[in-house]
Structure formats: structure tokens, C-alpha cells
């Protein structure tokens, strides 16, 4: 154990390695390189550590020559010094023999050294051969890694900014695209498309110029590539201003599973005007035409997404209704609900039939989606049906019916009450009492209002709505009202109540100082079958 306050004793070999790693004497590199001949052991490990710590291309190349024989731990030691090895890696990739090339390629892939992508692009542009193919494959994998890194959360941000790396790599790929006529490597074009993103000017220029040398290859990439990056580019371009025609055409035509899944995962933002306009310019969506396949092979969320997508597109109403019909008949619950909601803006007989079909769905949520459209579609018997549905056992259905009859509210009724005929007051009042669950509470508030006229009107409204039994407590309180007209009206209204305490309150009201109140109370008691003598009026 090292005593406190004293530095730990460094292993002598480690001291030698540290000194060789840091020495300003260039002879250190060949000294360490010579030690690599040992092949293994602590001296070998030390020599690797020392060499990768130095900026010496020959030493790094010597390490790369041993790459295949290195253990995982030793490879990690080498990867630690990768930022100093760029020169050697570049030389190994461009001019090295097969062994060096293979080692450098493996090293770049293992360490994810994106700075080497421009070099790999140069190798990939060489005439067809094993090396150029290997460089192409590696470039593609590194681009995917870089894209995933950029897409990831990256919190906390450590090391270099991936956007900066992306910018550098994209520059080299743009130059390669300019040389496309010479190398004709569509894979490099795909790498460019993957990394470019929807706002890249060079890519947009190619997509909008059919006579561009790269146009055909870019179109082919967009049409066939199953790369996540390409599919993201397509969906993201759709969310931006003026998506090029080639992108809209690809989205319209592609029906391969990976793309359809990516497309259906795209969020449709109703507030995004650009996306709405782009979608409106798409007249057909191949994956939505295969409605049966959607119902069988895709998840409930994807079925719903397909319906939303088609509804937002510029497809004909007939296409939208066809998908909705298939979903309503064979789709998942989520698909059926979305289908029902999606046909809301579509008028006509066929749409009405689909709504009625949805009304028969065994699940309340689908019925609810249909109920919300019943009135605006002016389907005969809709009002009666809605009033019936207010008492439905499924709260989702009754709530939807209530929402569909929203104009039968207490506020509306109150504002029109004075101008309504007696019959209309009763007809509408009964409906309002059924639709608006707040009626009793609101009437009790009105009965407690300081204005006599309001209190009297509340009694009239309660009578018209046939909700007086629910107001028994408030009516009993009104028997104590300061105004004898209110007391009379309350006593008269109480004949429609049945509670025992109402009868007791009426018997008490017989002793009221007002004869009119006494008469009204007696009349109401008579309705209960109670005969009471008229008390003497107070002076």
C-alpha cells in the first residue's frame, strides 16, 4: 500500500513507455515499433499504447499491420488514439497493401471514425473492384451510423458536434455527386441523399431538374431504397414547403412494407400548412388502395394512420369512402373510429350510409363517432334517435348524443324563454332538461336570485321543463320568500312534488299571513288528498 502523501510507484516498464510516448526524439517511434515484434505481453501492449500516443505515421501503420492479431482490449487501446491516426489511416486506405487496407477499414468501422468518410468516398469512386466495393459498403454503414447519431437524443452533448461532422461529410459527398458522371456509383448518391436532408439545396436542385445527370439515379434511390434515411427524407420533405414533384410521386406510388410503415408513422400536423398543401397535391396513395391488406397485415394504429393520411390527401371522396367502408366492416377498433371521423367532411348518400353502418357498430366509441355527425347530415329521424341515445347505457354514446344536441342548453333556453309560446316552452324545456345535466342546479341558483322576476321565471321554467320534483328543497325555501307572489307560485308548484317534507312545508304555509299563499298551499295539499282549513289572515 502506498503511504499517504507519497506518489504511487510507477512500474519501470510503464515509465519507459510513458517517456517514449512523450519524447521529442523521433527515434522513439522506431524503438517502439521494434518492440511490436514481440507479438504479445506487457511490452507489446506498452508499445501499442506508446505508438498511438505519438504523432508518427510510420508507427501508426506498424500498429495497423498488427490489427488482426490484437485482442479486444488492445484494439480499444488503439481506438483511444484514433484522432492522431488519421494520416496513417488515410494512407492505408489510399495506398496501403491489402492487409493494411483491410485493417484500416476494420479500424474505421470499429471506431466509427466519420472523418475518414471523405477518404472512403475517394476509394469508392475508383473503378469497380474489391476495395472500392468494400469502401462503398463501409461508407453506407458509417453514414447510417452518423444519421442515427444525429437523430439520437445526445444529452448530455459530449465531444464533437455531429452536425459539424455531417457538414464536412456532406461536402465530400456533394463533390462526389458532381463527379457522378465519371464514377457512376449510385450507392454514393444514396449516401448523399440519406445525409442531405429535405432542405439541402444541391439535392433539391437535382430533384427539380430532370435533365440533371444524377436525376434518374436519385429518383431510383427514392423509389427503391429501403434505407431509413431515404424514407425519412421523403416524409420530412412532405412536411416542408413545396415538396418536389418527384417526392410526391414516390409517396404516391411506393407500396413496399418498410416505406409504408415509415409513411404511416409520419405525424400529420393539422397546423402545418405546408404539409397540408403537399398532401392535398397527392391524388392517390398506393398503400391506402390496398384496403384489405391494411386490415389484415397492419396494426390498428397503422390502419388509423392510413385513413388519416388518405383523408388529408387530395384523393377523390370515393377513394376515401372505399377505405372507410372496408375499415368499418373489417378494420380494428382504432381504424373504425378513425374511418368514421374521416368521412365527416364528405357528404352524400354513400357517406350517410357509412355513418348509419357505424351506428350499428358493437363498440360505443365507433357509435359515438357516428352520432356526432348525425344532425349535420340531416338524416331523417336523427333527432328522435339522438334523444333516445341520451339514455344509452354506454356513457360514451350518451355523451356523444348530448354533444350532438348541444344547442339544447339551459343558457339557450333561458335566453329564449320569454319569447317562446307556451307549447314551445314545454316541448323545448323537456328536451333541455333531458340534454343538459346542469338544469336542476342552474334553476336552484335562479330561484335564489335577488330579483323577484328571476325567481318567478325560474319557477315557470321548472314547470315547463317538468323538473319541479327535483327542485323540492328549493321550493320549500321559497315558501319563506319575502315576496308573497313568489311564495304563492312556490306553493302552487309544490303540488307536482311528492316528498314528505313538501307536505309538511305546505301545512306550515297554511299559516302564512297571505291569503293567496294559504289558498295556493291548500290547493296543492288537495292534490295530495289532504283537506286543510283556511287559517286567519294576519292583520
Amino acid at each position: 500500500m502506498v503511504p499517504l502523501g507519497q506518489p504511487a510507484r510507477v512500474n519501470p516498464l510503464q515509465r519507459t513507455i510513458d517517456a517514449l510516448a512523450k519524447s521529442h526524439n523521433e527515434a522513439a517511434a522506431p524503438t517502439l515499433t521494434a518492440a511490436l515484434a514481440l507479438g504479445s505481453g506487457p511490452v507489446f501492449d506498452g508499445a501499442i499504447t506508446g505508438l498511438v500516443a505519438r504523432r508518427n505515421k510510420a508507427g501508426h501503420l506498424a500498429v495497423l499491420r498488427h490489427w488482426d492479431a490484437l485482442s479486444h482490449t488492445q484494439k480499444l487501446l488503439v481506438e483511444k488514439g484514433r484522432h492522431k491516426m488519421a494520416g496513417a489511416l488515410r494512407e492505408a486506405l489510399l495506398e496501403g497493401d491489402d492487409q493494411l487496407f483491410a485493417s484500416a477499414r476494420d479500424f474505421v468501422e470499429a471506431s466509427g471514425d466519420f472523418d475518414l468518410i471523405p477518404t472512403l468516398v475517394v476509394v469508392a469512386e475508383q473503378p469497380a473492384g474489391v476495395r472500392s466495393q468494400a469502401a462503398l459498403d463501409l461508407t453506407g454503414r458509417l453514414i447510417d451510423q452518423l444519421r442515427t447519431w444525429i437523430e439520437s437524443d445526445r444529452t448530455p452533448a459530449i465531444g464533437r458536434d455531429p452536425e459539424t461532422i455531417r457538414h464536412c461529410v456532406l461536402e465530400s459527398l456533394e463533390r462526389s455527386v458532381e463527379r457522378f458522371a465519371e464514377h457512376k456509383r449510385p450507392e454514393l448518391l444514396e449516401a448523399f441523399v440519406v445525409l442531405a436532408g429535405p432542405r439541402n439545396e444541391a439535392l433539391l436542385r437535382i430533384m427539380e431538374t430532370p435533365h440533371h445527370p444524377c436525376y434518374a439515379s436519385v429518383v431510383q434511390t427514392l423509389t427503391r431504397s429501403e434505407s431509413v434515411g431515404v424514407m425519412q427524407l421523403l416524409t420530412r420533405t412532405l412536411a416542408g414547403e413545396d415538396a418536389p414533384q418527384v417526392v410526391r410521386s414516390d409517396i404516391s406510388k411506393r407500396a413496399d412494407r418498410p416505406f409504408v410503415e415509415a409513411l404511416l408513422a409520419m405525424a400529420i400536423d393539422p397546423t402545418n400548412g405546408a404539409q397540408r398543401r403537399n398532401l392535398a397535391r397527392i391524388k392517390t396513395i398506393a398503400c391506402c388502395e390496398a384496403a384489405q391488406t391494411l386490415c389484415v397485415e397492419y396494426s390498428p394504429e397503422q390502419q388509423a394512420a392510413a385513413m388519416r393520411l388518405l383523408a388529408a390527401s387530395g384523393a377523390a371522396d370515393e377513394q376515401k369512402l372505399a377505405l372507410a367502408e372496408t375499415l368499418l366492416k373489417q378494420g380494428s377498433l382504432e381504424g373504425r373510429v378513425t374511418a368514421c371521423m374521416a368521412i365527416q367532411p364528405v357528404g352524400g348518400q354513400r357517406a350517410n350510409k357509412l355513418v348509419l353502418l357505424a351506428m350499428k357498430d358493437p363498440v360505443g366509441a365507433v357509435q359515438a363517432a357516428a352520432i356526432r355527425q348525425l344532425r349535420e347530415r340531416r338524416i331523417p329521424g336523427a333527432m328522435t334517435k339522438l334523444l333516445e341515445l341520451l339514455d344509452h347505457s354506454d356513457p360514451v354514446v350518451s355523451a356523444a348524443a348530448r354533444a350532438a344536441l348541444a344547442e339544447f342548453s339551459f343558457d339557450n333556453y333561458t335566453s329564449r324563454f320569454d319569447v317562446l309560446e307556451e307549447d314551445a316552452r314545454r316541448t323545448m324545456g323537456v328536451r333541455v332538461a333531458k340534454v343538459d345535466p346542469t338544469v336542476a342546479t342552474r334553476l336552484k341558483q335562479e330561484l335564489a336570485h335577488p330579483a323577484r322576476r328571476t325567481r318567478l321565471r325560474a319557477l315557470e321554467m321548472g314547470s315547463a321543463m317538468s323538473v319541479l320534483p327535483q327542485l323540492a328543497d328549493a321550493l320549500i325555501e321559497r315558501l319563506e320568500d319575502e315576496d308573497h307572489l313568489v311564495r304563492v307560485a312556490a306553493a302552487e308548484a309544490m303540488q307536482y312534488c311528492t316528498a314528505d317534507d313538501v307536505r309538511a312545508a305546505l301545512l306550515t304555509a297554511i299559516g302564512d299571513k297571505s291569503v293567496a299563499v294559504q289558498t295556493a298551499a291548500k290547493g296543492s295539499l288537495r292534490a295530495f288528498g289532504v283537506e286543510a282549513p283556511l287559517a286567519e289572515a294576519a292583520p
Partner: protein
Amino acid sequence: MIASLTSRLPLAEIGDDFPTSGPRLNWSDLWAWGVAAIVAALLAAIVVQLRKRNDMDERCDNPWKLFRELCRVHNLDGASQRLLAQVARARSFSQPAQVFLTPAAFEIASLPPSLRNRGDQLLRLRGQLF
């Protein structure tokens, strides 16, 4: 009259007859100063060379200097340094500093006879370096 006087007497001899003037200075009078200057220059060059030889922060490509740098890192005394240099030469290493990374270089059996009789020293040195 002045013109005739100067034409008769060489200008160089003007002042020779002043009472405080010494003998005339010749080149041979400067040799001592020259030697002193050369010695000083030599000394300065030696000092510069010595400092350069021991300045391990200076960028260079000198195998024996690296050897000395490592000897200094391990605090080796003069005798050990000489012995280690002999081993490096005996092993014909392309870089003398390789001896610091090659434990097998200290195997006595394969060393020349002149070094074999210093086996104890070599073993101690090996223990010190590895």
C-alpha cells in the same frame, strides 16, 4: 613653407617624438588576444553542445540521445549506463533504446564473454528496468 615641410616628413611618423607615445603596434602584438578569443569560442561551443546534448525537450531524431533520455528517466548511474550501452551494442539493436523494451537482451547465456562475467550487475539492471 608648410607644404614643403610635410613633403619631407611622412605623415605616419607624426607624433613619434612626443614624449608619452609608446612603440608602434604590429600584427604580431595581437596573437595573445586571438588565442584567447578562440579558446572562448571553443568553450562556448562546448557549452552549447553540452546543453544541446542534455536538452531532451529539443526536437531531434537521435537514437543515442533517446538512450540517454531513458537512462535519465530511470536514474541510472554512469556504470549502469555504460553497461547498458554495451548490451545494446552486443545485441546489435538498430535503436539502442530497444534495450529498455527487450527483457531477453539481458539473458547472459547469449551475451559475449566480456559481458557474461557481469551477470549480477545485468540481473540487477534488468530488475531495475522491468
